[in-house]
C-alpha cells in the first residue's frame, strides 16, 4: 500500500494536520494495521520535500502548535496518475505450499497431510473473517471479502493438488 498516495488522496478533501490524517487513515484503511505517528510524519516530510504538499497554516490548541498541510497541484496530478495505473497482478509463482508438497513427495512423506493441515488453517482464518463480517460495517465486509476470496482461491488449488497427488508424485520422482 502506498501510504504517500493515500495521505495525498485524504488531503484532497482539505488541509489537515498529521494527527488528523493518521485518524482518517486508520478509520478507512488501518483495520489490523494502524499507522504509526513516525510513518505519518516521515511520509509528510517526504511529500513536502517533493513539492506534493505544502504547509497551510498552524493550529494553536492546548498542546503544541500543529502544522496543517494541503495538497499541491503536483500532488493532485500524482494521485490521478496513481489511480490510473493498474496494480501489477501478483503472479503467485513462488509458492511455499507447492514447495512443501514436492518435498513431501520426494521424501516419501504424506503430502496429503500437508495439504489437509493447510486447508484446516485456511478455513480457520476464513471462519474468523466470516465472523468479523457479521458485526462489521460495509467497509469491514469488503476488506474481509477481499481476503476471503484470496483464501478461497488457495483452497481450490489445495483441492486440485490433492486430486493430482499420485500423478505429481510419479513426475517428481522420475
Amino acid at each position, binding site marked *: 500500500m502506498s501510504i504517500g498516495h493515500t495521505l495525498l488522496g485524504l488531503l484532497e478533501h482539505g488541509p489537515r494536520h498529521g494527527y488528523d490524517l493518521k485518524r482518517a487513515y486508520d478509520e478507512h484503511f488501518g483495520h489490523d494495521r494502524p499507522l504509526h505517528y513516525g510513518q505519518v510524519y516521515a511520509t509528510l516530510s517526504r511529500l513536502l520535500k517533493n513539492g506534493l504538499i505544502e504547509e497551510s497554516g498552524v493550529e494553536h490548541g492546548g498542546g503544541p502548535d500543529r502544522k496543517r498541510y494541503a495538497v499541491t497541484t503536483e500532488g493532485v496530478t500524482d494521485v490521478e496518475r496513481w489511480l490510473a495505473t493498474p496494480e501489477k497482478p501478483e503472479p503467485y509463482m513462488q509458492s511455499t505450499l507447492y514447495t512443501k508438497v514436492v518435498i513431501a513427495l520426494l521424501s516419501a512423506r504424506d503430502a*496429503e*497431510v500437508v495439504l*489437509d*493441515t493447510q*486447508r*484446516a*488453517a*485456511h*478455513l*480457520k482464518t*476464513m*471462519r474468523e*473473517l*466470516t465472523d468479523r463480517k*457479521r458485526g462489521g460495517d460495509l467497509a469491514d465486509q469488503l476488506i474481509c471479502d477481499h481476503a*476471503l*476470496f484470496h*483464501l*478461497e482461491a488457495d*483452497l*481450490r488449488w489445495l*483441492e486440485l493438488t*490433492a*486430486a493430482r497427488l499420485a500423478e505429481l508424485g510419479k513426475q517428481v520422482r522420475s
Partner: protein
Amino acid sequence: MTEPLLKADSIVKSFGPTKALDSASMSVAAGEVVAVMGPSGSGKSTMLHCLAGILAPDAGTVTYAGRDLGAMPDVPRSTLRRTEFGFVFQFGQLVPELTCVENVALPLRLGGRKRRDAEALAREWLARLEVDDVAAKRPGEVSGGQGQRVAVARALVTGPKVIFADEPTGALDSLNGEHVMRLLTDTARESGAAVILVTHEARVAAYSDREVIVRDGHTRQVEFA
C-alpha cells in the same frame, strides 16, 4: 467432546460397481454446524443421504440420538425425518402449485396441524427469514435467493434437531448465497438445531464450526488449533 447426536460409523455405500462411500465415519453434536466438503463425485452427498436415513448404507451404522436408523422400520423412520430433520437442497424443493406460505406450512400440515395454525407459524418463519413479503406468491414468481430463504423457513418450521443442507447456495450469486448462509446458520443456532452442510465452496463452509473432508469415499478430519 460432546456426545454426538448423529453418527455415521464406518459406512459403505455402492451404486452398482461404484463405491461412493468406503468405511466413512463422521459425527455431529447437538447445535453444531458441520461442513462436509470435497470435490464433485467424492461421496459427500451420499454421506448426507445416509445420515438423513434417505439411503441405507450397505455396511456400517448410522445412529441418531442413540437409535440405529438402519434397524428402524420405515414408518417410524419417515416420521423421524419429518419431525426431527429439516432439508434444504440446491433447487427444485418447493412445490410449484403452492404459495410460499403454504410451502412452509406443508410439513406442519403433514404432521396434522390445522391450516390456520400452520400458516400462522409459517408466516412467522418467513418473517424471520426476511421474506414475509412473498408469502402469497408461488415459487415461480420469486427470485432464487428468496426461494432459498423460503426453503430454509420450511426446513426450520417444525423445530428440527438437524438441518441437512446440500449445496444450499449452489444456484445463487455470491451476495444472495451469503445472505442465505447467514440466515440459515443464525436461525439454526438460535433454535439449537445442528446443521450438516454439504458444499464444495470454502466461503460457504466458513459459516460452519468445523469441516469433514470426503475424498474418494473416505472421510478425513484435520484439527488445527
